[in-house]
């Protein structure tokens, strides 16, 4: 003889705890059957389950209308899609291109620091510079600190395998320049190494990107510095210096004034 099911208060409390999971279809087999039996037998819990189910469905419908597939908030901007596709294509580069590291110029006459000749001035900051300033200004946490990785010399090693080129940071031969740390970053769709420096008067962030196809043409004031052409522009209160070494483009963003920034960049060109 089977007794009528009398739901105990304990059962109701239990159902309250598991109702969400039941409505989300997380229950199977015995759990599901038990929950359904309780709901069938208990008017209080039935009302609660029905109310919760209606509320859940109403919110889900509105959420999907607001940000689901095909809505403005549910669609990646076309420019982002293009950048991601380019980024993927770039990473598909043949192996030899990823292995061949830039060969530094062996012998270069010492940079005549101080003898800076402005060659040309073309426009204001360009996309590369703007991106670098934006990235630097956001001040995202570093993924590795020089102290944590065993000194500034270990930073390039930390990037090994994380980028498809070997970022060789320039050596700033000025006193008081300290490597704080680094993280993986990007300028638009191009993966970049980012290194942060502490300076006697201010700080700086350096982006290193691989640019074998010479797609970056920095604008701004153009200055010959030893073997390099360095371009400088100002954006959002930062001075940015951009120079190229073979396939690698360096963008140094700093709160230094232009003369100090030139001085710092010059120390990295000397004896390269």
């Amino acid at each position, binding site marked *: 003889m089977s007794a009528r099911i009398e739901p105990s208060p304990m059962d109701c409390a239990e159902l309250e705890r598991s109702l969400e999971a039941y409505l989300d279809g997380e229950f199977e087999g015995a759990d599901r059957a038990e929950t359904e039996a309780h709901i069938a037998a208990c008017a209080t819990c039935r009302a609660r389950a029905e109310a919760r189910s209606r509320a859940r469905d109403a919110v889900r419908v509105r959420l999907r209308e607001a940000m689901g597939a095909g809505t403005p908030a549910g669609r990646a901007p076309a420019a982002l899609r293009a950048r991601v596709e380019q980024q993927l294509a770039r990473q598909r580069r043949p192996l030899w291109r990823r292995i061949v590291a830039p060969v530094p110029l062996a012998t270069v006459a010492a940079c005549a620091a101080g003898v800076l000749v402005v060659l040309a001035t073309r426009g204001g900051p360009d996309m590369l510079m703007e991106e670098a300033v934006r990235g630097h200004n*956001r001040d*995202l946490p570093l993924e590795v600190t020089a102290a944590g990785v065993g000194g500034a010399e270990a930073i390039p090693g930390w990037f090994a395998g994380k980028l498809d080129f070997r970022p060789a940071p320039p050596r700033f031969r000025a006193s008081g320049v300290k490597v704080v740390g680094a993280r993986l970053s990007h300028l638009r769709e191009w993966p970049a190494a980012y290194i942060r420096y502490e300076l006697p008067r201010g700080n700086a962030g350096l982006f290193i990107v691989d640019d074998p196809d010479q797609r970056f043409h920095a604008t701004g004031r153009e200055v010959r510095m030893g073997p390099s052409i360095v371009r400088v522009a100002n954006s959002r209160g930062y001075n940015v210096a951009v120079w190229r070494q073979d396939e690698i483009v360096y963008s140094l963003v700093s709160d230094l004034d232009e003369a100090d920034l030139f001085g710092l960049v010059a120390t990295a060109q000397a004896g390269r």
Partner: protein
Amino acid sequence: MARKTLSRVEFEAEALKHLDALYASGLRFTRDARDAEDLVQDTFLRACRFIEKFEPGTNMKAWLFRILTNTFINKYRRSTRERSLVDGPEREQVTDQLHSPEAAERAENPERALLDRLVSEDVLAAIDAVPIDFRMVVILSDIHDFSYKEIAEILDVPVGTVMSRLYRGRRHLQRSLAGHAAAAGILTEPPAGEKIDLDAYRRLRARAD
């Protein structure tokens, strides 16, 4: 014949199918379009880096979302002012309103009819006002239909934590929606005995100031 690895091109094609979903979620996580774009780009960069760790035949969408949420938590969240609200007991004060069916009905469903009259901007503002730990779980469950187990793996938390965050996240969202309905003038008279939570609305105003 089953192959052990996806080709690079197959991997990319499959991954790109989830770009919209990743961006939509990233936008709600960061609440900033530029940050969301950066986050999604970083996600794809990392996905490519870890491509050999993806097991073909497993759920690529869940795998990509794991990278997205990881990247968000490690890089972006620390740089935002948003504070986690999950420090306290996660199930506090969730059941005290639910004594009777009537109270339950009110608490669950105070603005059901009004929901339909809210514009999408209000709904987005309401979800954005939910604390981030709860918001992530609600989005993963209610938008992307991930199971509790998948969400637990994506966020690297126990299933019990997913359950309590989802529970509280949904309550938050309902109160937040009611707050927006009140702010929009749709809801003028709160149901008897029901306190309309305007916290979401105030936070929104505070941000706009």
